[in-house]
C-alpha cells in the first residue's frame, strides 16, 4: 500500500476524481497492475509535491469510465490500460481500442499473462 492511498469503487470513482480536482490536485498518471484475481488501477495525483493515490479494484475485462472529462490529460494513460491489461475505458476523447502502442498482431493484454519465473528468457 502506498502512502496517502484511498480505495475507491467504480460507483464513486468519478466523484472522487472530481474532488481531487476541486482540491487543487494535478493528475500525474494512472497505473494498472494484476492484483489477486483482479486488476488494481491506481490514479496518482500531486499537490505541492505531496502525492495522493486512488486505488480501484476491478475484475479482468471490466469497463470503467474515463476520467478525461475531469482531467483531459489522462487519455493516454487510460489507453495504456486498454493495451496492456485489456480493460475497457468508456468515454475516451481519443480511443485507440487497445492499440495505442501495440500493433494489430501483438499479444492481447500482455500484462495479464501469468509468467513462468523459471523461464530464463532471451539471452541466457
Amino acid at each position, binding site marked *: *500500500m502506498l502512502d496517502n492511498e484511498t480505495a475507491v469503487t467504480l460507483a464513486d470513482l468519478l466523484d472522487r476524481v472530481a474532488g481531487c480536482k476541486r482540491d487543487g490536485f494535478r493528475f500525474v498518471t494512472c497505473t494498472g497492475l*494484476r492484483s489477486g484475481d483482479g486488476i488494481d488501477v491506481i490514479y496518482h495525483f500531486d499537490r505541492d509535491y505531496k502525492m495522493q493515490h486512488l486505488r480501484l479494484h476491478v475484475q479482468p475485462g471490466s469497463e470503467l469510465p474515463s476520467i478525461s472529462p475531469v482531467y483531459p490529460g489522462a487519455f493516454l494513460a487510460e489507453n495504456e490500460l486498454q493495451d496492456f491489461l485489456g480493460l475497457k475505458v468508456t468515454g475516451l476523447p481519443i480511443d485507440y481500442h487497445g492499440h495505442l502502442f501495440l500493433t494489430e498482431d501483438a499479444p492481447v493484454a500482455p500484462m495479464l499473462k501469468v509468467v513462468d519465473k523459471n523461464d530464463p528468457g532471451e539471452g541466457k
Partner: protein
Amino acid sequence: MAGRIVIPFGPQHPVLPEPFQLKLTLEEEKVVEAVPAFGYIHRGLEQLIEKRDFNQMVFIVERVCGICTFMHALAYCQGIEQLMNVEVPPRARYLRTIWSELQRLHSHHLWLGLLADAMGFESLFMQSWKNREAIMDITEATAGSRIIISTCQIGGVRRDIDAALQGDLRKTLDQIEAELRQIEPVFRDDPTVRSRTVGKAVLTRERAIELSAAGPMLRASGVPQDIRLTGYAAYGELDFQPVTEEAGDNYARIIVRLRDIHQSIELIRAALDKMPGGDISVPVKGNPDGEVVSRVEQPRGEVLYYIKANGTKNLERLRIRTPTFANMAPVVHLLPGLELADVPILVLSMDPCLSCTER
C-alpha cells in the same frame, strides 16, 4: 466552409529525431484537429521485470531513454532504496546530482541545436552541438562513457570524481558558459526566432495544470513545479529554486531551457563546492518488498516510477510515466487553431522523446 484535408505529420519528419505521427486535419492552412499515433518504437521494457531481477533492471531502465539515461536509473534506484531502507552516503548523493545536471546540460544543448536546425540556423545548430560535445567529453572523463554511463547503482554510485577531474569539470563549465554567451542572444533576440515563437501556441497556467503538463512545458506557463524542489539527491542542500516564465508560448519554453542551462552550471559548481568526502556506496542485501512511487526531474520534466515488489528478486510491477508522455496532451490541445507552418516549432518546444514515451 473550406474543404478539409488530412496531413500526416510524421512518423518521419525533419524535426522528429524519433518517429511518431500527428494526423492533422486542416482547413486551408489552419489545424482544426490533431490525433497523435504511436507504436513505432514500443519495446515493452516495463514487462522485462518478469525476466530480469531488480538489480539487472537498473541497466534496463537506463535504456528507456538515450538522453536522460542516468536520471532513469536514479529514479529507479531511489525507489528501491526507499523500499529497502537503504541510506545512500552523502558523497554519492552529490555525485548523483552532478551527473544528473550534466545530462540536463547535454539534453538542453541537443534540443537547442535541433530547434536552431528546424528554423534554418545551421551555424547556430553547430555551435549548440559544439558546446554539447564539451559536455559529452567531460561526462566520458568522469563516468567512462558518453551516453549510458551506468554510474548509478542501488546503494550509491559506482565511480567517484577525484580532485583532478573536478578541476577539469570546473574548466568545462567555464567554457560552456562562455560559449553559451555567444549563442544565447540569437535564441533570445533574433527577429526570425521571435516571429516564430513569441505569442505562438500559448498554454495558459490553468490549462497546463489541467492537462498534466510537465517540466519546461509547465514551468513556461508560470507553474513552479520542479521535483528537484523535493530535495532528492543533494538538491535539498543546494538552494534550488525552479525556473519559471509566465507567457506560456514557444518563446517562453526556449527561455526556460536557456535559464535551466545556467542553473545547471551553478548547481554543479555548488555541488562541487559542498561535496563531502567519504564512501560512494553502501552494500545492499536482500530483496525489496512493498510499493513505492519515486520521482525525479528530468530535462523534459517529472518522471514517475511506480514500483511494486514482493520480497523476491523479481518485481511485480514497474510503471514508468515519462514527461513526454505527460506533455502529449497539452500539445494535442494546442494544435487546433495553429497554422501548419507553426506545428514543427510547437512539437519541438515540447522536446519530444518517443523512446521514453513508448518505453
